[in-house]
């Protein structure tokens, strides 16, 4: 058995009276893509920052965090040298152009300039930015900036790639392109950590994930396993319950669970047939029968109400 790339046990972080991360324990294996899924304010970014020593975890005797066997608070340089980080906010140097940004950053790794040039060109090609080589950062689209931030994180051929919401705010084309590239990297043996609140992204990329809410681990597993184990296979969504008000108070058929929020009703069940016949009764209300997905699990686990951190 190989040593895990990340071992975390009882890791917490408190800011004043706010406990942002609550006693998380998990491990991430080499070549794995591990995700942290949660609403805004769930503590995902705080957790990532602990990995590369931007945030110090709470000190307690039981708390332990190791990356490649190193404690971020003691050997941050070793960890950073082997990892690449793509933060949530693009923080490229606006005054410089694309290639200059990469070459400048390569200095931080002590990379000789010929090697830096080669590697930068390789990465621009990989992320389909070669044509923008001399473009100023402010002339790039959001998607291009994001890809450049990822390219920058890859400069030193990291063993671990840390991605904080890699595709938030991007259009579907760019999102799919980035997913594709990340899958290629994973195939080449890069271990990946990512945070997201896109269920689709977690489903597409992650081997395993933790659903976080208010700093806590709500559930953990592979995306398929989480769906299979935590929610009924089918859901009937009725988006305007008032169109058929008479059905509102009728007793639920056996094996059907109702989740009501606003005007929308969601009926969950293991039986497709049961939901189909229920759906047929909604003569006026628009309704839609589908398979459940990670989003349903997520909402079931974290609740539909917004909290003060969102």
């Amino acid at each position, binding site marked *: 058995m190989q*040593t895990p*790339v990340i071992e975390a046990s009882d890791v917490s972080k408190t*800011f004043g009276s706010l406990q942002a991360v609550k006693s998380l324990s998990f491990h991430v294996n080499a070549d794995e893509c591990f995700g942290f899924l949660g609403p805004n304010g769930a503590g995902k970014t705080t957790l990532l*920052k602990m990995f*590369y*020593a*931007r*945030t*110090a975890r709470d000190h307690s005797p039981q708390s332990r965090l190791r990356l*490649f*066997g*190193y404690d971020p608070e003691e050997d*941050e*340089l*070793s960890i*950073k*040298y*082997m990892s*690449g*980080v793509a*933060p949530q*906010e693009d*923080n*490229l*140097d*606006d*005054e*410089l152009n694309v290639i*200059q940004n990469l070459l*400048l*950053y390569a*200095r*931080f*790794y*002590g990379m000789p300039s010929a090697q830096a040039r080669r590697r930068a060109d390789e990465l621009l090609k990989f992320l389909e930015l070669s044509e923008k080589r001399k473009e100023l950062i402010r002339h790039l689209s959001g998607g291009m900036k994001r890809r450049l931030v990822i390219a*920058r*994180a890859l400069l030193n051929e990291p063993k671990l790639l840390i991605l904080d919401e890699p595709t938030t705010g991007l259009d579907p084309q760019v999102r799919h392109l980035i997913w594709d590239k990340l899958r290629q990297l994973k195939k080449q043996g890069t271990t990946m950590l990512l945070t997201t609140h896109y269920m689709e992204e977690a489903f597409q990329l992650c081997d395993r994930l933790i659903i976080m809410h208010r700093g806590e681990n709500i559930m953990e597993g592979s995306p398929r396993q989480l769906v299979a184990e935590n929610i009924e296979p089918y859901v009937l969504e009725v988006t305007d319950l008032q169109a058929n008000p008479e059905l509102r108070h009728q007793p639920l058929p056996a094996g059907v669970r109702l989740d009501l929020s606003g005007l929308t009703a969601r009926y969950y069940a293991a039986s497709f047939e049961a939901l189909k016949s229920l759906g047929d009764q909604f003569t006026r209300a628009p309704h839609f029968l589908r398979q459940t997905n990670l989003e349903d699990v997520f909402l079931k686990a974290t609740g539909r109400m917004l909290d003060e951190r969102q």
Partner: protein
Amino acid sequence: MSGSKEMRFPKLRQRLYSVWYRHMRVYTKHLFSNGFPPFLEPLIFLWGIGLGLGQFIAPINGQPYLVYLSIGLLVTSAMWTSSFECTFGTFIRMEFEKVYDGMLAAPITAENLILGEMFWAGSKGFFFSLAVLIVVGLFGKLPMPGSLAAPLIGFATAFMFGALGLLVTSFVKTINHFNFYMTGLISPMFFFSGVVFPVESLPKKVQWLAELVPLTHCVRIMRFIAALHWDSVILWDAAYVIVFTLIVGFFATKRLKKRLIT
């Protein structure tokens, strides 16, 4: 995990250099607009003071007023540039541009970054003092060869004010607060630290105040070296600059680190 790659993160010297290099690269990107003013400012002083005000002022300690003032400017140009760099500049990099977020994801520590800022501030001081030296020197208004030491004094001055600026930055919540520091501390220092007139001309009761603030010591060192004149008070001045830089630099690093590493 085994392997040799992890041990090859860059040495301290390289890490500091990469922080310095990043700032130098961005600064020289606009070489003309950034590099021209340091040369223009002393020219304006030469004309404004030399052709204008200077004619009405008696020589100070046997020096024409223009010469007296110019020696002071060799030092204050370094103070001004590093004070702006490590207050507004640092704050913008930290809070608005998020440049440090990118840099701290690379293999450098927060301490490396902060010390790198001070070296960069020192280097800018070197350059600004050099610019004054060249312009005013070409007009023959500086004692030679003593004034040639100006860039080195400029480096030390700017390094010290860089550390002080970073300490101030570690307290500041909104960028406008720097106005208090600039108007409340840096500007008065310019006028009351022996740059525009000798400290000895201040009322006796407040002279100790001039002795307390850092700029006075840098200016005095510069004057003595420019005149190639030795006086044991230089030892006090040098000790002040070194101790002040170490103490302020220590607390600036400590406090700013807390802000960067939450």
